């Protein structure tokens, strides 16, 4: 009984909360959020290419409209990092097999420029 009380104090008193989740639901959620992010980035890239103008004399990354610049930053970040973050979530949850550990350093995000650099999937 004394040990149980001690364990309760240790678990609730300090440190990060540990959450137990159903593996399948957790994976389904991750997959859904990943799909939402990457699909939106793909559509957003299309809109940026179609509608955003570049200005050679503009300050910074040459987008004429600052909203285009912000949107482009999201596209480049999601394209470069979404998969790595997803893999890390799976790895830290113990849901990836040994030998498939993600790299320590997340992939480099392309610098912001107008026109947008080609999508990573186009280069592969």
């Amino acid at each position, binding site marked *: 009984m004394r040990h149980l009380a001690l364990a309760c104090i240790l678990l609730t008193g300090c440190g*990060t909360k540990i959450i137990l989740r159903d593996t399948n639901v957790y994976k389904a959620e991750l997959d859904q959020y990943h799909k939402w992010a990457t699909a939106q980035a793909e559509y957003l890239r299309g809109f940026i290419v179609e509608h955003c103008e570049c200005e050679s004399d503009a300050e910074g990354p040459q987008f004429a409209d600052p909203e285009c610049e912000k949107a482009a*930053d*999201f596209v*480049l*970040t*999601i394209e470069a*990092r979404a998969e*790595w*973050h997803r893999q*890390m*979530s799976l*790895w*830290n949850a113990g849901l990836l097999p040994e030998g498939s550990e993600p790299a*320590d350093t*997340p992939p480099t*995000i392309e610098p912001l420029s107008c026109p947008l650099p080609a999508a990573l999937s186009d280069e592969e």
Partner: protein
Amino acid sequence: MSDFSDVLDTLIPLVGGVIVDKAKNEITKLSEDADDPTKQIVFALMAEAVGELGEDGLDIAEAEIKRLLNGRTPDLDWASPRTASDAVALLQNAERGRKKKAKAAIAKAGKVFGTIGALFFKAAVSGALNK
């Protein structure tokens, strides 16, 4: 180095050479510190907080950076997606590091158990913890 130096030189007519030189020195000291990836994230968060939220941004950034460095969830709505991604990567890598340490401890304990058996195992671990 020359990027920010050129920009600061353009401010000399407005704020004077002494202030610009002081700013250059401070920025150089900061960039020397920025080799460390964690410090890079801290600086990026502080710069973005001030850019997005003005002078109040510094206090907000400080509070959120403390949360981040303590392994708690920071509120980084004001940060750029790339800096927010770096911050989350820092948390994820820290979690991976903790798990690796835990795994290594389990493996070490298992090896001790295999060597000395159950009879002395508890005493050995208790002794190690009390050191």
